[in-house]
């Protein structure tokens, strides 16, 4: 019963969604149904957020109580969480809330994101080492594409940007399309297995 009911709900919901996809979207009842589904999604998302908040606090209070070397992180999390939540609830346009968002959260996110530039350089260095025939091919193609994207490429030879665009438009795009078609087929297969109850791992436990 623990598994049968969720599988039945999944099956019915999936069949309804598939049928509605093929119905005329201009019909009033179809529009109403879609609006209803969106409301359901919002309600479930709101409960999910609450679940996340309570779980986060519960786990970190528990860690703090047990007191070990990592407890300081839990303390930082609880204090930050309460400070930003209370300041936001009191007045979401308050100076404290804005200050914390602009001067603490945003710089931290930007710092993490900016690290990407360095990581790209180190990953590219590893990927472009011409150890094999394929790697050499990749290196040459990447070099042409990069050169075609900067003004100096056109200054060296006027056709470099054209070759660069051709590489992106044909070999790269066709490889990408192949991956996307394969992924779409895989997605259909997984969906079908979930709808028919063959794939049940997401419910927890046995396959």
């Amino acid at each position, binding site marked *: 019963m623990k598994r049968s009911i969720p599988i039945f709900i999944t099956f019915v919901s999936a069949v309804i969604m*598939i049928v509605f*996809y*093929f*119905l*005329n*979207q201009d*019909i009033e009842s179809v529009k109403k149904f879609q609006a209803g589904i969106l409301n359901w999604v919002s309600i479930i998302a709101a409960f*999910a*957020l609450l*679940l*996340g908040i309570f*779980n*986060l606090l519960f*786990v970190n209070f528990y*860690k703090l109580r047990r007191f070990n070397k990592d407890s300081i992180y839990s303390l930082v999390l609880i204090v930050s969480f309460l400070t930003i939540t209370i300041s936001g609830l009191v007045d979401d346009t308050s100076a404290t809330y804005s200050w914390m968002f602009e001067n603490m*959260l945003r710089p*931290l*996110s930007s710092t*993490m*994101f900016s*690290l*990407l530039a360095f*990581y*790209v350089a*180190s*990953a*590219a260095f*590893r*990927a472009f080492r011409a150890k094999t025939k394929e790697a050499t091919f990749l290196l040459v193609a990447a070099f042409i594409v990069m050169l075609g994207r900067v003004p100096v490429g056109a200054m060296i030879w006027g056709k470099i940007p054209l070759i660069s665009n051709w590489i992106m438009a044909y070999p790269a795009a066709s490889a*990408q399309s192949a*991956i*996307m*078609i*394969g*992924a779409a*087929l*895989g*997605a*259909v*297969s*997984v*969906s*079908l*297995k*979930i709808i028919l109850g*063959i*794939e049940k*791992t*997401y*419910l*927890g*436990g*046995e*396959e």
Partner: protein
Amino acid sequence: MKQKVLLFSLFQLRFYSSAFATEAEEQISNSFFQVSRIPVLLGLIILCGLILYCIQIAKKGQYIFIRKIAGLNAIDDALGRATEMGKPVLYVPGIMEISDLQTLASISILGHIAKKTACYETDLYVPNRDPLVFSTAQEVVKESYLAAGRPDAFNENMVEYLTTDQFGYVAGVNGYMVREEPAANFYLGGFYAESLLLAETGNAVGAIQVAGTAIPSQIPFFISACDYTLIGEELYAAGAYLSDDPRSKGSLKGQDMGKLAIMVVTILLILFNIVYNMNISSGNDSSEGLLGKTFNVLESGMKGE
């Protein structure tokens, strides 16, 4: 002779397509069905039919050959390495919601990996970005430990919810990698800008890394920074590949049959396009004649017009 056969086939194709399109155009305004989506429905029926047929064959016990996927075979090696080194295993189920199929595929793989870490008595850590993915992952890991006969080895802290903030999540996972130095890292699911941040940090701490995503823009990053990468469909196939259930294996075969059907259709369309272009270059009007009209009907059908 061959050209005549080809032209006759194209004529038939054009006849049926144009008849179908004309009827459809008349009914489109009042129809309860979205006529432009009928080709999608046909494709879906064919693909689902193939998958269901292969599942039935597999259920009857017929042998099904499945090609080796290096990334999935490497999972056991990675877990073995972590066990030998006495270091933990890190499993990142992506940053997408539970409604995303990549996440569901990833959760399925997590079940298999959790069973093995339970058997090998290796520590497992699963940080999550989405609250619903977190609760699902927690349940899956818990049940896997139970199924492996090691419920005592399960620890609530194995599966954690970190934050919904993308880079906050990266900071949390990277911090764990640097502190604990896991021996095996798995990044399976939907990833965006954080893919390289995670994979490069994992590479720097010397972990064996297996990644997989269906997002094409992130695949090159994983390929350059990880030891094994599941590309697109391989991520979806992983659950079935690792499973002993013949129905799952059958669905995998059906998926491959669908791919074969698409390849055949693609090749036919390429040939058709070549013939069409040859017709234009010989001086005929592109929108007139048998080929021109057929091509236009097919083109508008594919665009859903």
